[in-house]
Every structure is written in structure tokens, then in C-alpha cells.
């Protein structure tokens, strides 16, 4: 007997932002500001081959209700971030169970601090899933810049 597929009648939220920032500010009135949206990150290479460099950015992810009606976003949501290394290996999976959303909320903004320890330069992709549905892929190109040597006069 075929399994009956579960149907969720509430419209799916729409993505409003999925980007990396150096800082995300939350104002007193609830308005967010994204400071320096980045898709490149320059960092010194790890000092030794078996060590890693630390990349620290904020993932700024926002959704809006599709019809702006009360209750559309209400309930529990699961946000999942899946990182892919430049070598196309699935690196880290973060699951964030978001606090239960009340009836009057029509937008959902999340800021997540990501501290990545990397030893490979290149483009790292982060796949953004909300409730199991892929909404975006966020690229971050990590560039290793050699440290400048002091000049002796």
C-alpha cells in the first residue's frame, strides 16, 4: 500500500537574505543591519601543514511569510546549514531548532556566528535548508594571503 504523502497547507516562507556578513546588528526596534556583506575572506595560511586557520563570519539568514498573514510562520522550524569544502566534501552540518514562532510574526531573521577552521583555500559553499527544503547556497571564497615579512633597513 502506497504511503500517503503528508501535505502542509501553510505556504512556504520566502527567502529574503542568505549571506555572510562581518557583523549583524539588531536594533532596539527590531530592525536588522548587515555590516559588510562578504563573499571573499582573506586570511593568513595555517602556520604548519597540520594546523588550520580560523575564519570567523556571521551567516545572516532571513525569511518572510509569503502572504504576510498572521500565523503563516507560526510553529517550530528547523534550520540546517551544510558546508561543502572546496574539494566537494560535506564538512559540517549545523542544525538549529528555532524557538517556536508566535502567530503575529511575519518575518524570521537568524544570525549565526560561524567559526570555521580551514586548511584549504577556495570556495566553501553553505547550503541553507529550512524544514528540509533547500533555499539557498552561500559561497565564501577563502584566500590565503602570506604574512608580510618585516623589512630591515
Amino acid at each position: 500500500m502506497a504511503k500517503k504523502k503528508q501535505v502542509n497547507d501553510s505556504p512556504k516562507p520566502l527567502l529574503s537574505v542568505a549571506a555572510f556578513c562581518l557583523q549583524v546588528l539588531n536594533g532596539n526596534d527590531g530592525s536588522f543591519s548587515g555590516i559588510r556583506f562578504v563573499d571573499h575572506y582573506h586570511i593568513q595560511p595555517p602556520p604548519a601543514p597540520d594546523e588550520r586557520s580560523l575564519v570567523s563570519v556571521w551567516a545572516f539568514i532571513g525569511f518572510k511569510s509569503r502572504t504576510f498573514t498572521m500565523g503563516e510562520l507560526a510553529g517550530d522550524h528547523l534550520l540546517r546549514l551544510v558546508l561543502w569544502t572546496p574539494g566537494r566534501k560535506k564538512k559540517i552540518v549545523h542544525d538549529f531548532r528555532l524557538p517556536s514562532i508566535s502567530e503575529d510574526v511575519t518575518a524570521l531573521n537568524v544570525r549565526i556566528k560561524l567559526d570555521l577552521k580551514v586548511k584549504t583555500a577556495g570556495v566553501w559553499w553553505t547550503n541553507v535548508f529550512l524544514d528540509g527544503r533547500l533555499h539557498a547556497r552561500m559561497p565564501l571564497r577563502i584566500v590565503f594571503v602570506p604574512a608580510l615579512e618585516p623589512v630591515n633597513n
Partner: protein
Amino acid sequence: MARANRRIKKGGAGGPFLDSALLCEQVICEHDGTYSAIRMINRITFHTEAPATGVMLMTPFWLLVSFKAGSFNGSQDLLIAIEDPSGRSYQPFHSLQIAFSGGDTGQVALCQLMLRYDIDGTYWIDILLNRKRFSRIPISIAFDGQTS
């Protein structure tokens, strides 16, 4: 060809992907190409009398739309259209062709929001790429008739 390019593989393939579709009070563009979106909003109250229906209303907000290419190479039509609160009228606001070069490259569109005033209420800004809706941005506009 475009269909083949959209095929989703592991990692960063597929695309284009929405990066941001925001209304904010200010956008600061830096010399190195990064930008900051200051105070994202979704409602405004003007302390003046409401204008006549059909008047073009210049809002103090900036519309920021950006996409990442993913594995897509080629051009797509970006259409930004505004639906009024009654849902009757659908105004094309901005239309342009944008080119993608694949990978982590992308495109950013930035403009000040101007719309044809109809009535107080929520206007919807639709972001469509090749007729596919990627996002909708609500902006609730009200005039309270009180001159400041």
C-alpha cells in the same frame, strides 16, 4: 542549455541563488566591493496627507537585490514588480538583463524605491528571475494626515 546548467550537483552547483532581497534605509558600498545594509524595514508612516491615487511616491528606502551564480553561466532577465494593497494593479518597477559568470560570482542591483500610490496598506515587491519568483518583499505604507 540553461536547463542543463541548472542541474543540481554536489556542493556549489545549481543556481543562480538569491543572496539578498531587502529594503533598508541606507546601503553603504565600500571600495573593496563589499556593502552594508543599514536598518532593514518593512513599514513606514508618513506624517502628511495621503497623495492622490496614481501619484508616484518616492520612498526613503533602498531596494537591494543580489544573486550568486552557482554553476549558471549566461544571462537572465531580472524583473522587479510591485503589487498594490488591493492586489489589482501590478506595476513593473525595474527590468534588466543580468549576466552570470558561474561560481561564486554574482550581481547586485540597488535602487531607490519608487511606487505608484494607490491606498494605504501593504505593497509587495516581487523579485523574479526568468519569470521565477525568488522573493517577495512587503512594505506597509500609511499616511496619518498629521503634518510634523
